[in-house]
């Protein structure tokens, strides 16, 4: 296996994390919706917390993306 091939495989492996973060983000919004449908009156007050949870779980996917980009463009 050439170094270039190994680099592309590594970048692809790093990109798996983005899919896992997608599960996390989906879980955040899904759980919010589940709770909001049970008690719609309390839903509006929790929107800030919804976005904090979204931001926290999204960040990990973005870091996986950064790792993939670093492998592709920076590592020589």
């Amino acid at each position, binding site marked *: 296996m050439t170094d270039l091939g190994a680099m592309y495989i590594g970048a692809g492996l790093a990109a798996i994390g983005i899919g896992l973060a997608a599960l996390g983000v989906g879980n955040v919004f899904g759980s919010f919706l589940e709770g909001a449908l049970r008690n719609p009156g309390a839903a509006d007050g929790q929107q800030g917390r919804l976005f904090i949870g*979204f931001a926290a779980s999204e960040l990990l996917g*973005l870091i996986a993306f950064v790792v993939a980009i670093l492998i592709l*463009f920076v590592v020589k």
Partner: protein
Amino acid sequence: MAAGKIDPMEQFMVEPVLGRRIEIGGFDLSFTNSALFMIVVFVLLALFVSGGLKRQLIPGRWQVAVEGAVSFIDNMVLTSIGPEGKKFAPYLFSLFFFILFANLVGVMPIAILPGLHTFAVTSHITVTAVLAFLSFGIVLAVGFWRHGFHFFSLFVPHGAPGWLMPVIIPVEFVSFMVRPFSLGLRLFVAMTAGHILLEVFGSFVVQGLQAASPLGSFVSLLSFIMIIGVSALELLVCAIQAYVFALLTSLYLNDAVHLH
């Protein structure tokens, strides 16, 4: 293949607008496209806000829009910091709307006019990191101003047993110090990723048409439909990232004001 290849990173190139570099004392002080688009964002923002400052008793549409924007930020500050946070509302307003306008200007499709293309200011970590460190600096300044060295009690959660302290204090310290990096990185990566995605699908459209075969045209059409969807998603991401940046800044300010 090499002729039709489109580099998705080319759009992030910072280059002098007028084509020549200005060097003063060994520093490159050229007027770049990044600076140009920051000025564009500033002018748009100034126009937007100044249109709503007429203070009519019966507000027009524009004034309602600006008042809605102001009360949106006011509500965010009130729910996350409380009444003491009122003095941070102007900073958070500027932060939110600068990022929102910069994101939106970055995805505007003015590249269909030949020779023009937008530049997403927030897709550079230099810009977002400066914003994040500004927020973090304000948090530190407010925290030390209000509480002095008592501010360090931020690292000691209430009700944690004493024997846990050697573990919990370093963890809290690291999670506090990582905040500006995560704040800046999130915005930068979200915008960069979106722009790369749009560019990659755009290059699929071009290469599909260049292939001049039925399959190529089909791929091109599918990619074009995908671009429409991704663009809509990008508009959402622009707003969400600006909101998240302002929201997290206000939460960190809440920590500095109230110490848990």
